[in-house]
């Protein structure tokens, strides 16, 4: 995950521009200009969004594709999102992409592990058909390790049955080579 985004920062380090609600949301980042911790302040890293940046990809293209229960098949909506991802990636060739697959489906955790891997691979295969070089992509399944929401209802499970196209500048241990 790019260091410009808050989600990598878990340490609670008090920053000078502290919110009214007293949230300790910051961490030490390269960006020293903090916006107040209140709703509608710009999100960290998004104060300005440059073309070709990860923030540009997140806001203007979208990283997530979703799947029906028990399925690793891409529907028309998912394909439209991935078409846009492929177009962006062919114009921004410095980025690699780690496809992170997730599942929260009926059956065992092991079944979810397999399904999440198949989902990531389905997205990878589709991006390749849309012209993204396979050497830029790798796929990993996370089973139920990273749920967006945890409850028995479709309103949670639909959020979890996803693949996230995570931009990277280098490959990690999950990549085959």
């Amino acid at each position, binding site marked *: 995950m790019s260091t410009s*985004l*808050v*989600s990598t920062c878990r340490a609670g380090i008090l920053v000078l521009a502290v*919110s009214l*609600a007293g*949230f300790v*949301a910051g961490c030490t980042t390269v960006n020293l200009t903090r*916006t107040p*911790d*209140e*709703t*509608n*302040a*710009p*999100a*960290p890293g*998004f104060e300005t969004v440059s073309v070709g940046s990860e*923030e540009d990809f*997140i*806001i203007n293209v*979208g990283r*997530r594709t*979703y799947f029906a229960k028990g399925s690793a098949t891409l529907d028309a*909506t998912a394909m*439209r*999102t991935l078409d846009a991802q492929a177009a962006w990636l062919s114009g921004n060739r410095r980025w690699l992409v780690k496809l992170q697959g997730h599942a929260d489906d009926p059956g065992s955790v092991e079944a979810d592990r397999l399904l999440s891997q198949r989902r990531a691979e389905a997205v990878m295969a589709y991006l390749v058909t849309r012209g993204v070089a396979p050497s830029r992509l790798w796929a990993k399944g996370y089973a139920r390790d990273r749920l*967006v*929401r945890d409850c028995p*209802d*479709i*309103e*949670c*499970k*639909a*959020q979890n*049955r*996803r693949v996230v196209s995570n931009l990277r500048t280098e490959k990690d241990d999950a990549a085959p080579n």
Partner: protein
Amino acid sequence: MFLTRRSLLGSAGALAAVTALPLPALAQEVASKWFAGAVDDTGYRYRRTNFKVIEPQWQRQMVKYFSPQPPGTIVIDTRNHFLYWIWENNTALRYGVGVGKEGFQWFGHARIDRKALWPRWVPPPEMRKRTPGLPLKVEGGAPDNPLGPRALYLYRDNRDLGYRIHGTLEPWSIGKDVSSGCIRMFPEDVIDLYQRTPRGTRTLVLEHLGAPADVVHAG
């Protein structure tokens, strides 16, 4: 919970935006500053919004967001004309919205149980009484269909609430209260939101201040 204007729903159950009636020639010239060409989308076209003339606060942007609502849900603030798609770590993708009269008349929790591409529009009977000359229906993808390229339908307990998130033909109306319709977004934004929100996504519409005291909050 209670809908305050249940009688509006009618048989079609389609509370939707005010129609874009054919504009006189002069008004059409003025309207053109709001658009920059056209975009092909799944066999139809919409007029591209000229975001250079849109105020910055109505443009899609990532913001900090502090509330008890969880990631992977939508919150609609009708009073301030924002729709939030909530992410982890107290962030949200925020969109500007225009709110029609029907958009103010219900609040509470719902779920997006149905989504449509280029939906057909059927003006409800009350709207047709208010605006004589409205057609009975407008086909999906027609250039005068006020729903635009997408609609997201809010349900509760498997019942269509008649409350929609849809596009618009009138980008100048984003950020404003308008006479009819529910929640309207720039066509680019409703297309974007459509791709980000799977069926089953929970949506909270915040209470609009000034609602009658006897309306029960859905909780």
